[in-house]
Every structure is written in C-alpha cells, then in structure tokens.
C-alpha cells in the first residue's frame, strides 16, 4: 500500500515535469515578446480582408446602435429600430447595397460599444457617441463627421429656482456612468468651485427615477436626451432644463483604426447628406436633378466622375441611393427630431453654415 502511494507521487511529479516541458515548448509562440509586438503586427492586419469586403460578403451592415434613446436610436414594440442615428446606419447600408434594410442594428450599452467594435462584432458605431481625444487615440477609434452637435445640460425642478451652476452649491446630482458626462460634471463643478454630491447610476432609467423621486436635485446628460427623457417624468411640466452647457458633445459615427477606405466611405456618406441639403436635393425631388447641368450636383449624384469608386463602391450612384432612400440631412433630422416629433428640437448649431449653423461639408471633387 505504501509503495503504491509512493508510485502515485512519482506519477504526479512525472506528469508535472511533462506539463512543464509542454508549456516550455508552446510558450515561445505566446512568450513575453508578444506583448511588445503591437506595432509589428499592425501591417499584417492591412493584408487581411478590408471591412468593406467583409460587409459585402456578409450581405448586410452591422451597426452598433442604441435601443433606449427615443429620437436617436430606439427599439419600438414591434422590434423595429428607428431614430436619427439609426437612419445614418441605414444610409451607409444604402450606399453599399442600394438597400437601406441590408442592416443589422446591434444594440449596445455605453460601456460595451467600443469593445464590440474593436473585436469586430460590428462595423461602425452610430450610437450618440461623443468624439473625444482619448477615444480617438487610446481606444483606437476614428471619428467621422459630427452628425449632431450636442451639449451636456442639467435638468432641475422649477420650484428650486436654480438657473446657474452656482445655485447648485451643496446639491445632489444624478448621473449615468460609462459616459463622458461623469467627467464633464466633475470638471465643470470644480471649475465653478461648487461642491456637490455625485449619485452615480449604471443606467438611464434608474438615474431618472431617482431624480423623479427627489433623491437628486438635478440630473445631467446630453441636452437632447434630457428633452427626450423629460417627457417620461411623472410631471414633466415641473422640470426645467437650465441654460447652462457643461460640455461640447459632438456626436457622430466611429470606426476602427486601420482601415482608411472604410473610414472614407462612412465620412462621405455623411457628407453626401449635408451636400444634398445644400443643393436642395431631397428624396422626393431627386429625379428632377438627374439631368442637372450643375457639375457639383452631377458629381454628387454620380452623373459625372467615378467618386463612388474612390471609396470602393462599384455603384456609381451610391450617394444618389442614399438620398433617394433616406433623404438629405434636413429630412433625416426632421423625421426623427424635428417639429412634427414630440422632441421638437430646434436645429441650432445643427444647421448648414449658410443658415447660421456649423454643418460644413467639404466638396466632392
């Protein structure tokens, strides 16, 4: 019996030794030098398939979006996605396939969206995502043209009489984590020298519920979301969004580092919608422009030059398809956020530069 135990022990030692040998044989492939080889590996990536070819092979675009923000990205009770951001997903699908429905919207939370994009589970993020330097660099994102200029705001109860940041001395503020809002709040209150208590929640619903119950004196997020959420409070009329902007929030599409062709494609689809508004082309009157003699319109609609080929698309009328199926920027805006919707958001900064806004698309030439 005793010798048996000894033998077992010998077996254990033997197996450990074998295990180590195996480990030693396999580890050079996974050895420590790998950790440093980030840069070396990057060029290898370029030789593999491009994002566009992957999308074309798959037959549809996978767009990382929001399912909880009415007006921007919202999943309705029938299972359809709608909203401003979702329409831009549809626009990209329309440019590639000539079919705005060749699209799968992959709903994601604020914190998982970048991971999903960088792991290749999605092709582009259009999910009220703020363009910031650390996201642009550290997280390996490329941000396309801003589709919506937003700003972080504060909503308070009317009865509190608050109208400036200084009035909020000692107040409790509800905020959602995983966004730039948390940082802006800290920065702006520190700059104003106002002490406050941050009550941090993981999701929108809880944050607004706590505010509604009076746990917080103010709630903060992007102004467009405040407008959209105010309608869901128990007594919307008792609340007011104060005239303070805590931050710049340029929202727009983002793609992975490392595929410039794909980045260009996303950029120019967005610019095309703005250029169409500049030229007065809408989804309804586009056919009347098809014999236009204006070279700028001709280039946009694919009557002149091969601009779609420059972003890798064979269909010369790729931008014309976008306009036909989704409309120009004004149509997309009005359909989701304009006067006929519950939000009735004024265009403000989101007007063309010719109308006092800051939308200024470079020319197609």
């Amino acid at each position, binding site marked *: 019996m005793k010798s*048996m135990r000894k*033998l*077992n022990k*010998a*077996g*254990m030692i*033997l*197996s*450990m030794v*074998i*295990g180590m040998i*195996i480990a030693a044989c*396999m*580890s050079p*492939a*996974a050895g420590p030098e790998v*950790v*440093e*080889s*980030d840069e070396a*590996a*990057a060029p290898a*990536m370029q030789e593999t398939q491009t994002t566009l070819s992957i999308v074309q092979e798959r037959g549809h675009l996978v767009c990382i979006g929001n399912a909880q923000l009415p007006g921007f990205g919202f999943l309705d009770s029938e299972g359809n996605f709608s909203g401003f951001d979702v329409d831009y997903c549809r626009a990209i699908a329309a440019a590639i396939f000539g079919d705005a429905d060749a699209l799968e919207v992959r709903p994601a939370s*604020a*914190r998982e969206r970048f*991971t999903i994009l*960088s*792991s*290749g589970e999605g092709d582009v993020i259009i999910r009220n995502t703020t363009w910031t330097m650390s996201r642009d660099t*550290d997280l*390996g994102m490329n941000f396309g043209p801003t589709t919506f200029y937003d700003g972080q705001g504060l909503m308070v109860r009317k009865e*509190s009489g608050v109208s400036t940041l200084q009035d909020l*001395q*000692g*107040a*409790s503020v509800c905020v959602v*984590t*995983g*966004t730039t809002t*948390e*940082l802006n*709040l*800290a*920065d702006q209150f*520190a700059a104003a020298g106002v002490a*406050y*208590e*941050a*009550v*941090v*929640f*993981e999701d929108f619903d*809880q944050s607004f*519920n*706590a505010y509604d*119950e*009076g*746990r917080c*004196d103010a709630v903060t997020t992007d102004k467009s979301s405040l407008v959209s959420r105010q309608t869901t409070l128990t007594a919307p009329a008792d609340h007011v969004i104060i005239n303070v902007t805590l931050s710049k929030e340029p929202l727009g599409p983002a793609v992975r*580092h490392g595929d410039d062709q794909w980045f260009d494609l996303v950029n120019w689809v967005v610019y095309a919608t703005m250029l169409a508004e500049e030229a007065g082309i809408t989804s309804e009157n586009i056919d009347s422009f098809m014999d236009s003699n204006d070279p700028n319109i001709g280039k946009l609609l694919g009557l002149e030059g091969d601009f779609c080929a420059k972003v890798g698309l064979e269909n010369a009328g790729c931008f014309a398809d976008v306009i036909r199926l989704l409309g120009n920027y004004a149509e997309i805006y009005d359909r989701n956020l304009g006067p006929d919707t519950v939000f009735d958001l004024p265009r403000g900064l989101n007007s063309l530069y010719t109308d006092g806004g800051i939308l200024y698309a470079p020319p197609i030439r």
Partner: protein
Amino acid sequence: MQEIHASQIRPPFYRDERVLGIFTQVLVVVVVVGLGLFFYNNMITGLREKHTVAISFSFLGQVAGFDIGESMIEYSRERTYARAFVVGLLNTFQVAILGIIFATALGIVIGVMRLSTNFLISRIALIYIDFFRNIPLLVLLIFWAQAVFLKLPRVAEAIVLPGPIFLSNRGVAVPWGLPTESWSTYQIILAAGLVLGAAVAYFLREQGKRTGRMPLITLWFLVTVAAVGLIGWIFLPQPLTFDQPVLEGFNTQGGKILSQQFMALLSGLIIYTAAFIAEIVRAGIQSVSKGQREAATALGLNPAQTLRLVIFPQALRVIIPPLTSEYLNLTKNSSLAIAIGYPDLFAVAGNTILNQTGREIEMFTMIMGTYLSLSLLTSFLMNVYNRRIRLVER
C-alpha cells in the same frame, strides 16, 4: 508448495492500477496546461490583432477626473485612479464589516427564536427565514432602494427624530463627533483604559479559578474601560464636539450622512444573510445532543445559562465552517451595489474606471485579485478561530 504472493502477479500494463494511475495524472496535467495555454494564447493574439495597447498598469497613476459620492478617505477629482480604487475598496470594506456584524447578531437571534418552544416566536422566525431566503438578493436590494428608501419624504420635508436625526430619501443624517485638539491625547487614555480593563479581567479570572466562583468578567471589564474613559473626558477639554446635522440649502449639512444607497445596500445584505445564518445557528444548536441539555438542567443551570455555557460553545464547532461561507458570500454579494448606485469596489473600478480607461484585462485582474484576497483573508481568520474553539480530544 510455494505460495505466490498476490502482489507478485503482474497484470498486463493496461490493467495495472499503478500504470493507469500515473497515465491518468499525466493526461489531466497535459489537458489542464494545454487549456491554460490555449486561452492565454488566444488573449494575446486577440490583443495583438485588435491594435489595443499592451497590458500595463501605469494608467493607475493618472488623474481620475471623476467624483465619487461617498468616501472614507479624502478624495477629489484630481486624485489618481489608484486612489479611486482604494476609495471603492474601503466602501466595500465598510459594508462588508458592518454587514457581517449585524447579520451575525440578527441571525443568532432569529436562529434561537426558531427553536423557541413559544409557538408565535418560532413561527415568526420560520416565516422570516423562508421569506427572505427565497427572494433573489438583487430583487431585495432594488426593493429596499426603490420602494423603501426612495419613498421616504424628500429632504425638505425630512422626518426629524430627536438627536436630531434627519430621515429622508437622501439617507439618514445623524449627529457625529468631530475630533478636537485633545482627541489624540484622549485616544491614548482610552488605550490605557483597555489595557487596565484587560488586566482586571485577567486578575478576576485567575481569582475565579482559585475560588471556583467566576465573577462577571465582561461586566467588570466594561466598567473599568468606561470609568477610565469618563475620567479622561472630564479632565480633558472636550476631546470631541458633537456636530449636529442641520437642513441647509439642498441637503443636510454637518453630522454624518449615511446615504440612501448605503442604507439600502446594508439593510438588504443584513436581512438576506441573517436568514441563512439563522438556519446555520439552528443546525448547530440542534447538533448538540439532548443529554447535554438534560445534564446542564440536572446541574441546576437555568435555560439561559444552559444555552450560554453548555449548548453554544459546542454548537459553535458546527456553526463556524458554514458561517465562514456566509461571510464570504456577504462580502462578494456587496458587489451588487452597482445596481443601486453605491460606489463600492466593483462600481468604481469595474464600471467607471474601466469605462474611462478601456482597460478590461487590467481592471478585472485587479478586481478579482482584490475580492479573492478579501475572501482568503476572511476564511483564514475564521479558520484560526475554528482551530481555537475545536473540541480538544484527549
């Protein structure tokens, strides 16, 4: 006739128990090491292909930039991520330690009630246990946070209890001592009081052993400490001033504020864990044989003495190991704080810091390592205690 010993017959190697034993062990090690390497390789390849930055913990030294609602140490947005991590850790500690103390006390009371011969008392305990043990903790926590504490009056109409204690849906504001200049001297006096109390207790115990009549050692210990504390208080110019909360502006100022999220998390954890502890206590008490109780009664001990001196010391041996698991559970369950907005370790590190830095692997390694160390520490301490109270067999 030569006898052949059984061990001398060698079966073929594929049926030889020893050979098979060694072979199985080798196989298991190969599979485990292989799997480990596969996943490690997978992670490294994944990291390389996705252009993410190499694993490094240097970001911990960067400025965090965000505020945390409640903190036991000084913290502001200019401090580092490492500091924010510690703030979260201390908040977890606070909830875990208070939770363990109160859950144990409540659990013992309910466990003993469960065994009461009084029908009403034992039924109340039974209902408590069966009710709270069978509701998911997350549901219980959100219930406490949203349906109980958030439904308290708003801070402007707070319920004011004598003290004054302000009860509102922002939390509970209680008067709190603020240390003055003489506080450090007073702490030394208190320490001296503790030493003196211990000396008195030791002396009384020795005397009790000699005379065979044990005095109330704990009582005399407390009296000594309190007496020293009181003398120090009288002779020093006010080591603590009492800071009373007042309603000012948006919130109560001064005193100590136990936030709504903290109260909801703590009460949820206590109530939930106490139900399990009660069952453990009941099992422990019932494991002590009936003869022990009868013998104690025969010796003339009253029921309270029987429980305290005979039943409980023996029950502890059965209680401690499963109780350790409950303590570990409570500590780990405190990570559900994220659902109700309390800034514990997981909420601060696994959510806010992770979000801002995008460093999943580093943050989760740290978080898992921290919870693991906390749990190992708890179970180490409990094992030490378990060894001390174990029945010494002669």
